């Protein structure tokens, strides 16, 4: 493996070894504390524009599996790990992580003191730009400083065209903001007949398909940078059919109903925070990947209930509309990777659709 360096906009340099793609990469560096599911994390479009530090030190032990992708063309900017364990000697194994990252043009760097990087990010208290480079010289830093990351991330990752995922049950339209396959998997498991639409879909286009319900998917970046027409779409659709929003979709749902979002000083990516389910008074765990959150005091209580709260940072983790059958969660109820404890939300969504179906 070739020597590579992880450099940060504050001038710090970490020496390591490269794997995956040899390309120079730039991105916002965030850390993920999950102990499981590196493949799902790498292929989650929520990491568009970002370089992810894995706190789990050993990555790659089971290579790449054909049936656990969360997207087909991942757009993560790179990964930073402590040690790679590609079972390289074994011919029977599927694709190794190293080869996969080469194919997908994703750079990786290993032998990094990832715990030191996490401490650095935590103390910085703001997102830090970083780069993986072959030589940490002035030129590399100049390039890093000059790099402007796009804020049109959803446009980059959303499907350009509608496509179906046929099923025999209820018809569901999924709006793709950076869709995670887990959402499709959970809906398929419930036999839904799915149509995935680009995030630009208008309310009219959606309702023309006469869906039983609409899902707003998770996705990357700042919800305020998503075109405003999306908010109008949500405002209309929620009055017509059941709506279930996840991640970025949840943030947009909140904004569409009068709430504000705020940036989290240190992005939170993991699956171990206790989340309070207010209606049942239960504590549950779910995968979280968030850089933005609904400002709690901006929630218009005449419009929305708060349904879930992160017990560590008190962040809003779920909303429900008072008048319409519309609800949302900040976390990923589809897991992949992560706990299954909140996958009942998909059942709830299906039940909601069924009840409306019965009324018709």
């Amino acid at each position: 493996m070739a020597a590579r360096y992880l450099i940060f906009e504050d001038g710090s340099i970490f020496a390591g070894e490269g794997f995956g793609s040899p390309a120079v990469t730039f991105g916002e560096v965030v850390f993920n504390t999950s102990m499981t599911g590196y493949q799902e994390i790498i292929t989650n479009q929520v990491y568009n524009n970002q370089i992810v530090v894995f706190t789990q030190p050993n990555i790659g032990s089971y290579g790449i599996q054909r049936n656990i992708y969360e997207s087909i063309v991942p757009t993560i900017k790179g990964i930073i790990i402590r040690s790679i364990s590609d079972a390289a000697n074994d011919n029977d194994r599927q694709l190794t992580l190293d080869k996969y990252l080469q194919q997908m043009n994703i750079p990786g760097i290993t032998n990094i003191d990832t715990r030191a990087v996490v401490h650095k990010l935590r103390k910085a208290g703001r997102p830090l730009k970083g780069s993986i480079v072959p030589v940490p010289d002035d030129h590399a830093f100049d390039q890093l400083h000059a790099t402007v990351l796009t804020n049109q991330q959803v446009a980059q990752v959303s499907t350009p065209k509608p496509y179906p995922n046929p099923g025999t049950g209820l018809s569901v339209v999924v709006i793709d903001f950076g869709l995670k396959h887990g959402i499709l998997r959970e809906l398929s498991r419930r036999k839904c007949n799915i149509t995935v639409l680009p995030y630009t879909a208008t309310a009219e286009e959606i309702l023309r398909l006469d869906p039983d319900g609409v899902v707003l998917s998770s996705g990357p970046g700042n919800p305020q940078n998503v075109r405003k027409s999306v908010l109008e779409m949500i405002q209309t659709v929620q009055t017509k059919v059941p709506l279930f929003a996840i991640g970025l979709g949840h943030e947009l749902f909140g904004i569409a109903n009068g709430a504000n979002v705020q940036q989290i000083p240190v992005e939170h990516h993991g699956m171990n925070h206790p989340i309070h389910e207010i209606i049942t008074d239960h504590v549950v765990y779910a995968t979280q990947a968030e850089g933005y959150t609904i400002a709690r005091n901006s929630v218009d209580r005449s419009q929305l209930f708060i349904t879930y709260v992160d017990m560590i940072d008190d962040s809003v983790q779920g909303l429900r509309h008072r008048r319409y059958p519309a609800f949302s969660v900040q976390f990923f109820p589809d897991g992949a990777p992560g706990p299954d404890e909140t996958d009942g939300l998909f059942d709830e969504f299906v039940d909601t659709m069924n009840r409306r179906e019965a009324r018709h």
Partner: protein
Amino acid sequence: MQNLKSVLIIGAGANDVQHGDELDSAIYQVSQVFKQMKIKTILVDDNPFSVSLEKVDHGCIVPLKVESLVDIINKFHPDAILPTLGNRQAFELTQELLEKGIIRKENIQLLGVPEATVRQVNSAVLLERTLRQMEAPVKKIITVNNYQEALDEATKLGYPVIIRSVLPKSSSTRKIVHDRSELADAVKQCLSQSRAEQVVVQQSLAGYKEIEVVVQRDSSGTMMMLSMIEDMDPIGIHAGDSIAFNPVQTLLDRQIQDIRDTAFAITRKLRIVGTNHIQFALDTNSDRFYVIKSSPYFDRITAFASQSTGYPIAQVTAQLYAGKRLRDIDLGENYIHHAALVEPTMDHIAARVPVWGFSELPKASRLLGTEKRSVGTVFGVGRSTIEALFKAIESRYNEPADFHLAAQKQLTDDQLVAKIVHPEAGRLFVLIEAMQRGYSISELSEMTKIDPFYFDQIDKMRSLIQEIASHPNKEPFLQKAKSYGLSNQLIARLWETTPEQIYQMSLDHQLMTKYKEIEPSAGEFDQHTNSFYSAYEEENEIERTPQPSALVVGTGGLRLGLSNSSDYFVAMLLQELQNEGFNNVVINSNPSSVTLSPELAKKRYIEPATIENILQILRIEQPQYLFIPASYGKLLNSLQKYDLDVKMVIIPDELPSNAAGSDKQRYGFNYVYDGNYAYPLGATTELFSPIALNYQSTALRYPADLVSPTYQKLNDQANAAVLQMEKPGLYQVIFEQTNDKFELLKVQPLSLPEVAFLSKALRLNLPGIFAQLYTNNLDTLLETKAVPGIVTYRATFPFKALRVKGGIPARNRVIGAQMQFLDE
């Protein structure tokens, strides 16, 4: 549970192959929390090596029998009974108490588990029924009464299958049948052994991955997963004998989540409050998994999970027992708000390896199977699988030499194959040698059912060793070796030099060890457990402990002979040092050790006790005192080569050489010697062993049955002998009796098992007094109170568990002990 004022804890009794220090450690920690909550603890146990017996409000040294428990209940009228800190036996005793009706009559609550769960823990059949009812995946078991049916079922299940007699006439008959040709005989034999004329055809899980999960539940139903641990060896080798990793190394998220869901479901169904350790078998070909066992009590795995994640399981569980919910628990200023609710996540890897007793029991079978063979455990923590494993291996101090890599070279190819297929203790080195001889990963994986990932790691270890060996004294390779966790000892062996030379070379190249904290949020939060491990990386998280401080080197994994008396000694010594105002720093690598309890030290280093680690840590901590076990002979020799600015005190953990029994009766006169004066502690005498047919130092009574004039005479003689000793300490003078004559054989340091026994018999903290001798704090004149009646001590031995035929009791083979106060 507002009214919880007193709790009866059922102890675990003498240590055995199944359990070591971890239960004493858990009781100690739980009772400390209860104390803070103003709940009185009553502990029933007869283990002389228990620290807890001396720390709880009422330590009751009585036999662990239902009759004694009834007496204790009638005496103390506890509000609750806690059966989860005394191994399976405590559940059996609790069930007997339930059957006696005393629990209901006295209106005593059960903590941790409801009555029904106590019964299910005690009965595999009941538990299995519950698991089936809730549709948890369990192995298939079919009862048949003839060969044809057995054949049909075996064909359906697929070989291998296990055939068992129903209601066997003699002891267990259980046959593993690998193919059809073996079936007829097995069925015939088992049928003839069955009183019901029935046999059970049972799916064999042998060869599947063994996964161990530790979950936690509170009274409001909140559940958390604290750890998921992977055993390197497949089912068929006892989990306690396998190398184990926290976290799991080869599982897909999907498998992890399915297992987690099932573990939660079982824990909910059994209405457990506290921790539950559940074992699973995972068939990676079909992705199916099976529940093997649910243990809602503390054990070596909960201890390992706690030490390796930094999540304080015992402290939290104690509060759950007292009725608190997880969300109400405050872990104090070193943790964030609601830290108890944050599932531990690791940015390091912990490898646990078994410790064997073969140095003391060379004839014990080394073949690994479903019965546990190891006697203790040590662990290593690192930032890669390899680093953790190298450190864990280094922590085994007393392994026979033929466990080392070099010994495997002597094996013929046939011998090697035999050892691969029929695994023996210390198999890691066999597997390294196999890779060295060119076996492929898939071949070895097929032969051993060990995941290819581990062979990949083993192969990396192998090539790393080769690479280092062929570049002697080269700095970049030293750096590489250190970053993978190779000890200076190993590097020195490869470079044919000394560990001291390697240490010097590290200093010359400014290759300094750095330390990282074992902290359960992987750096997300600013939290501190004060447990550290070494790492050769960028960041150093260590700071010198505030002064005055004492560095105490623990005695490592459990060793036959001392059993846990050494941990008892070190723990009591730590407590005394703390009382004297010292900030304790502990080095240890035994996850079960009570000395790693957070209450006993300001800081813990999870490291092997090697010269490099001790020198590094001395450099950082600059303590006033260094306490170090005498049994680390090599280490002590090395230390003498350095000019250290620290007062060194030797922990007397070596066993006296008079290990064997004697035809003649012997007496031990015991003293505290402060350098000027010898304080008599009274005399013990050896008891006659009906097994060995002689007198054994492993069975004692106190006081010795000597008439007063004899006692006085011998005491004077012994006293004079002790005054000749060079150093202050705890001493024993041995007399041998021939007819009416008493011959003074020798003066020796009082052995640690006897220190523990006498401390309890005399209600005197002898390890504490030992510490005082060296910290010059022995200010009061010691007076021993006469003990009413007789106190006996009987060591226990692992012969039966380790299948050693005709094992002879001896001092160096002790695995545990029991003591009893007899009224005269």
